[in-house]
């Protein structure tokens, strides 16, 4: 018996008698002797709760988190302030511990949460139909490619290099199974090269995938992209950063077919990359091709308003091999955090937050661009993140700043050889002007030090 089980010796004896077995071992008779492990698992002994806590605390203390440094690291996940009411609501057992709502009569809380979440995502994206969440951003992009396959069955997925490297990698991993082939198109001046994109699009194109703002933080002009895709009958998929969507022209307004994205910024912690959630919204014509759970409104036998999982015939538990996805467990608790967050921000707050980030990002880009040896990598309009080019080894500069307690951002050279001198800097409402000024100071000294030591010799792109 452990602290989580209740079996006493008396219980065991009496239960075995009822079962008609002489020992627990006998209950495993169906397992052939050759397949019995026959030894204890080679794992440490169990610990008391306080010992486990001490062990986990010690491990966590060896991580440098956003609590320990001023961080400008973004590139897909962001250090936002998570309001306290989210912690308190999410810790309620009734949200934390139930399973997927297969018995709607006792799951109205969870189903209504899904309905409210779907509404919020629909409002943000301007598209009429949202599901109740997918795992996270890049796999949602992968799911959009599957919807395109179901819609038109064509082969080529044309994706801009402005899309997050992890999303592009996920597309490439899924493509052989989908029977698709991924075609990447380049950036120019920090944004999708429209001429190259148009040249890559043709009658074999199943979907065109772009990101807004793109990975380099640039707000792209998507109207010509949408026009080019529609001209050949391809779907348009836009992977979006949700908070700037409060300001930016919506995928719905642009005529995009499917909008997806990473939901972590909406009330979820960084958690070293997960769990968060992916959102997925589409135009009405695609409703029956949507992956994932969808909650719908209805009435009960007495006329009461209620909610159910609907359009379940799309899903694996009914449609099996012809399902729109294999997804079963999603990220419903994280989506709850998302809808609470959007309700907390509210109609005006969402706009104010986006405007604050845009103004701070603008200030940061100017201030940092004025530092000797640092310039903006592109001058495209930005919403909360932007790219700089450094006259010194970016990795070395970032290390120097880190030693001073400032995480300067993401070295672009890791995924973009064409931007080997690039640094991606992210702004949230947590990064004050004083923080930005401190980054400028640290960056300036780091670049100067690295230039003096010639660390960039021969490696400038």
């Amino acid at each position, binding site marked *: 018996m*452990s602290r989580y089980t*209740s079996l006493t010796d008396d219980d065991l004896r009496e239960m075995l008698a009822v*079962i008609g077995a002489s020992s627990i071992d006998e*209950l495993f008779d*169906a397992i052939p002797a050759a397949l019995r*492990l026959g030894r*204890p*698992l080679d*794992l*440490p002994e*169990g610990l008391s709760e306080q010992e486990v806590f001490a062990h*986990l605390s*010690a*491990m*966590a*203390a060896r*991580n440098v*988190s*956003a*609590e320990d440094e001023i961080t400008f690291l973004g590139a897909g996940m962001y*250090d936002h302030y998570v*309001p306290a*009411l989210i912690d308190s609501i999410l810790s309620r*057992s*009734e*949200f934390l511990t139930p*399973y*997927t709502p297969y*018995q*709607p*009569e*006792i*799951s109205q*809380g*969870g189903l209504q*949460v899904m309905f409210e979440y*779907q509404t919020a995502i629909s*409002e943000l994206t301007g598209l009429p*139909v949202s599901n109740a969440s997918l795992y996270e951003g890049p796999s949602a992009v992968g799911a959009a490619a599957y919807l395109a396959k179901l819609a038109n069955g064509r082969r080529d997925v044309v994706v801009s290099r402005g899309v997050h490297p992890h999303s592009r990698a996920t597309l490439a*991993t*899924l493509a052989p199974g989908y029977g698709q082939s991924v075609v990447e198109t380049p950036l120019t001046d920090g944004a999708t090269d429209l001429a190259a994109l148009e040249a890559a699009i043709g009658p074999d194109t199943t979907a065109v995938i772009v990101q807004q703002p793109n990975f380099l933080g640039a*707000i792209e002009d998507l109207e010509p992209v949408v026009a080019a895709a529609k001209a050949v009958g391809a779907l348009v998929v836009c992977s979006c950063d949700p908070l700037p969507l409060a300001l930016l*022209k919506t995928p719905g307004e642009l005529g995009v077919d499917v909008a997806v994205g990473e939901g972590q910024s909406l009330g979820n912690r960084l958690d*070293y990359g*997960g769990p968060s959630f992916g959102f997925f919204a589409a135009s009405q014509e695609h409703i029956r091709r949507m992956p994932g759970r969808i909650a719908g409104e*209805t009435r009960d036998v007495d006329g*009461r*308003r209620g909610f159910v999982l609907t359009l379940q015939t799309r*899903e694996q538990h009914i449609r099996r*091999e012809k*399902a729109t996805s294999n*997804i079963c*467990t999603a990220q419903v*608790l994280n989506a709850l955090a998302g809808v609470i967050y959007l309700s907390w921000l*509210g*109609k005006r*707050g969402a706009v104010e937050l986006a405007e604050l980030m845009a*103004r701070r990002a*603008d200030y940061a880009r100017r201030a940092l661009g004025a530092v000797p040896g640092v310039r903006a990598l592109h001058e495209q*309009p930005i919403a909360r993140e932007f790219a700089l080019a450094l006259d010194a080894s970016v990795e070395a500069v970032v290390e120097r700043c880190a030693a001073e307690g400032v995480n300067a951002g993401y070295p672009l050279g890791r995924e973009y050889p064409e931007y080997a001198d690039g640094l991606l800097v992210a702004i949230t409402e947590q990064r004050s002007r004083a923080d930005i000024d401190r980054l400028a100071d640290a960056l300036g000294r780091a670049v100067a030090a690295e230039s003096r030591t010639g660390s960039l010799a021969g490696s400038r792109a």
Partner: protein
Amino acid sequence: MTIATQTPQQREEILTIYERSRPGRRAFTPPALDVPDRPIDELIPARLRRAAPPELPEIAEPEIVRHYNGLSKRNFDLDSGFYPLGSCTMKHNPKLHERVAALPGNARLHPFQAPARAQGALELMWNLERALAEVSGLPHVSLQPSAGSHGELAGVLLTRAYHADRGDQRTLVLTPDTAHGTNPATVTMAGYEVVKVGTSPDGGVDLEDLRRKADDRVACLMLTNPNTLGLFDPNIEEIARVTHDAGATLYYDGANLNAVMGISRPGDMGFDIVHFNLHKSFTQPHGGGGPGAGPIAVSDRIEPYLMVPRITCAEGAGGGPPRFDLEDDRPKSIGRLRGFQGNYGVFVRSYAYICSLGAAGLREASEIAVLNANYLLALLRRPEIAPYLPLAYGERCMHEFVLSGAPMKRDLGIRTTDLAKRLLDFGYHPPTVYFPLLVEEALLVEPTETETRETLEEFAEAIGAILCEAAEDPAIAQNAPYSTPVRRLDEAAAARTPVVRQPRPT
């Protein structure tokens, strides 16, 4: 004289948060603007901006809290009562886990933080990998997949890469006809065609059917053992031999791992690829539909194709602590199936569980899970119950069992769904209904090891009471439930004319 009572909640028709919204109310106030107040038009041209703001709620904190608290009270949950959902392993979620997941070193750690400054996280993931390798008997682990079906997809894509690397074109994947729906859905997404393998009268894989179908077009056989009927397939070694002789890989759906931890290992049974559901055997709370995690463990021959990044461990310099790192340079890797490293918050909880239980505790968890299931099954064999809900296969079970409601339907006039709805009135979450498809009017029951015998006894009493009631008047169960926040819902209307969001204010 009776005094009518009605709580505020009962008086109100259910409102969505949008219906509680009033113009001008707010919860969030932004930090003061400490940078120049440039007009937005100058920063983001109007043609790139939306015509109108999103119609999000306008509501202050107290009302948000009341709203969601009110919704929570319309949910049944595991902390409130028995939840014997077969195939879902609804075991207790230890409360320590929320505390460790919330430690700032975990919760506020950015996934792109330099590995040198995330050593605690990488060590935790490394240790979890080693533990899962030991439990499964397969040495190479990836924690990346976000759920069981995500792990399944990884497994079939790994199989595809394995065959492609040998220049071997295979087109089929075999699954038993008792398989969970995620299996065939996954197969299609991985570009294969599903072929079903039959189940023999004793509930295991039909070996003759398997031998007939396992040819050189078959890439993989996907199984779970114990299977979805709750039975351990004693022929598993022969099944593995037949599959491997055909050149195919053998995939283990780990949904039923709770029956065999520390007792038998899928790697030793001959499986090449195993997925775990951390939200099943390893206590990650289900959250109403996620998050979970579906890590996989694979054999040596599959290892080269595992997703990146891989976690590496190098000896510490000069006798110091080991150095952990993330590595992408694996030329044969299939790549990645999601961003970053996976659902780390889930890993923290599962790791805490494994530390708490240790080797002996994990084994004991499976032993008690199997004991509890057999005890509940024995209780449901009493003469008032057994004739109406016979066991579909075999005589004993492992951690779960399947009853058939077909005699109940024929003799009492109530179906499995009616029994389930009436159980709601008794304060229970019903078992899984109508799965596996092979059993008519199926009821799949999995109590797990964290329930007391009293709970199981009371549940059996409730089943008995409902059957007795149905013999008198089947209409009671047919129109159940009565005491839940809503009664039976019109799902046909919801599917015919889907309303999937709050309509916009006109």
